[in-house]
């Protein structure tokens, strides 16, 4: 990533501890991490290494015990918990391993919901949701409930939802874990395009080494620390 692109995520010395006293557990031990606009970064590591904790902190879902996290020009560490939803709406789009769509709402409504939370009126939100679903080639599935979609289609709805409102950062948690190889490849290409064609900063947690080559950087975490960073080989 060239030095001229904007640094969107900048975390330094991030510590996260759970529990108290004898049960205290340190999930992150002073992590430094950054990501630029338009960059596709993969976080890799074994289970319990701390990568999900790091993504949760970057996503304003968890507060760090120590250290500093800056998103664009705003320091998000130390922000009261009640304010975190506003930060998430302002900066973050999420893609979850289990898709996490609202089962009772159609594909279009799931996407429009994200826009409504960001202040769009219902008419504009519906139109934009339809447009975003077309972008992920689901323009003919607007009225389908998640149960009527395949795993890959659900994940693409999830991607459309994460794009709704154009958040600068996309955080994806094991987005290909529940997909077959071909669909996983397709979803990863979509994520890659989010970074390269739309300028989102995409941070993906994955064990799936089949998609490593799409990344600009692969950051290896283990035991709450970044062990190594290697360059990917994006297309």
């Amino acid at each position, binding site marked *: 990533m060239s030095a001229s692109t904007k640094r969107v995520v900048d975390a330094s010395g991030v510590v996260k501890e759970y529990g108290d006293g004898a049960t205290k557990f340190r999930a992150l031990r002073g992590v430094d991490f950054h990501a630029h606009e338009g960059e596709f970064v993969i976080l890799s590591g074994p289970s319990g290494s701390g990568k*999900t904790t790091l*993504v*949760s902190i970057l*996503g304003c*879902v*968890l507060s760090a015990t120590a250290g500093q996290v800056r998103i664009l020009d705003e320091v998000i560490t130390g922000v009261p918990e*009640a304010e975190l*939803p*506003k930060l*998430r*709406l*302002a*900066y973050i789009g*999420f893609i*979850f*391993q*289990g898709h*996490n*769509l*609202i*089962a*009772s*709402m159609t594909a279009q*409504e799931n996407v429009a*919901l*994200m*826009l*409504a*939370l*960001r*202040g*769009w*009126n*219902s008419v504009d939100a519906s139109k934009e949701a339809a447009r975003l679903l077309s*972008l*992920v080639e689901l323009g003919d599935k607007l009225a389908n409930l998640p149960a009527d979609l395949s795993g890959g289609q659900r994940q693409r709805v999830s991607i459309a*939802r994460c794009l709704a*409102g*154009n*958040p*600068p950062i996309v955080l994806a*948690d094991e987005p290909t874990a529940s997909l077959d190889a071909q669909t996983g490849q397709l979803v990863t*290409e*979509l994520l890659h*395009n*989010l970074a390269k*064609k*739309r*300028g*989102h900063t995409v941070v993906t947690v994955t064990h799936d080494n089949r998609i490593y080559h799409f990344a600009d950087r692969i950051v290896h975490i283990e035991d709450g620390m970044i062990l190594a960073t290697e360059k990917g080989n994006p297309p």
Partner: protein
Amino acid sequence: MTSLEHRSPPKAFAPAGIRWRTMITIAWRMMFHNKLKMAGTLIGVVFAVVLSNQQAGTFLGLIKKNTMFVDYSGADLWIVRPSTLTLQASKPMGIAALYTARATPGVAWAEPLIYGGAAIQLPAGGSEPVQFVGTSAPRFAGGPWNVVAGTRESLMRPNTMIFEDSERERLGGLNLGSVREVNGTKVQIGGITWGLLPFGPSFAFAEYELARRMLRVDPDQTHFVLLGLEPGASADAVKRSIMAHSPDLKVVGREEFRGMIISFLLRRSPIGITFGTSTVFALIVGFVIVSLSMFSAVVDNIREFGTLKAIGATNGDLAKIVVTQSITFALMGSLIGLALITRIAAAIRSPKLAVQLPPQMLLGTTVVMVLMCVAASSLAVLRLRKVEPGMVFR
């Protein structure tokens, strides 16, 4: 991804109106998505509505049985003995009260009323009690109403009485023209009423003089005096004027007399406690069912609620979902429950039991159900506050 697009800054946090609309939509979608759970919760509300209205309506029906005579008497004021606590047979008062009333400014009319117990001889032997009322012709204040056979004016014929339809069989198969002996006097049946069945024996009506003789009340005495006021006359002024002339008597208004009867009933009988307990029990059972159903629905959808939190919904937003659902359950359950209880009340309506469902009670039930369901959802709201958005990463 079909084209290169540039990011634009995200829009602001949604204003309250949009957040409410969004949460209401989610609430309804979640509710109607799980129809079985929705039916379970609705059953709880419907149960509470039907049972509480049935109990409260029956209670009001019993109250009405005891106050209907005062309601239908046509009198604005009643002159009673000071010891009077309710409408029941009592020692007579001097007839002078009648003339005092008639001479009082503001009084349009005043009529005496005989009110006491009598016994009707049955053709097969034995006797049955009736609540015997003597009313003055031609006004018939405190006289029969709901006359479904014969006429009220038949009382002006010698030795003629009017009896209650629902008690005809018990009183020996009464029909128009039947002759029976009441308190030792042979009388003919000149009319039949419907629904004039108080707590005790049914009403039986005779013309005032006949009733007075049959109950052996002296001519210078009567049980009650009923008064009608001239238009615009002050009831208080009339009361004060009569009581100034007859300090040994009491004058009560219609509403005041109703209140005395209800108060007497509640103090001297267990019906208030009995029906009150049943009504509260119905509300408690409904509360528990709704509370558990809503909590269970939240637990079932906990991951969706976690997702909503993760993508930017606040605790307040999630509370809006649950509160919307609870209000919807209350309104739907009230609608179904009130439709049911209205039909049930109509089906079981009889002179012996007429469940009363006044509009105020139906509206009040809906308000109580809304409050009950919102309170019942508080457990679910508390559970939602503990949902961590981070759960979606696990």
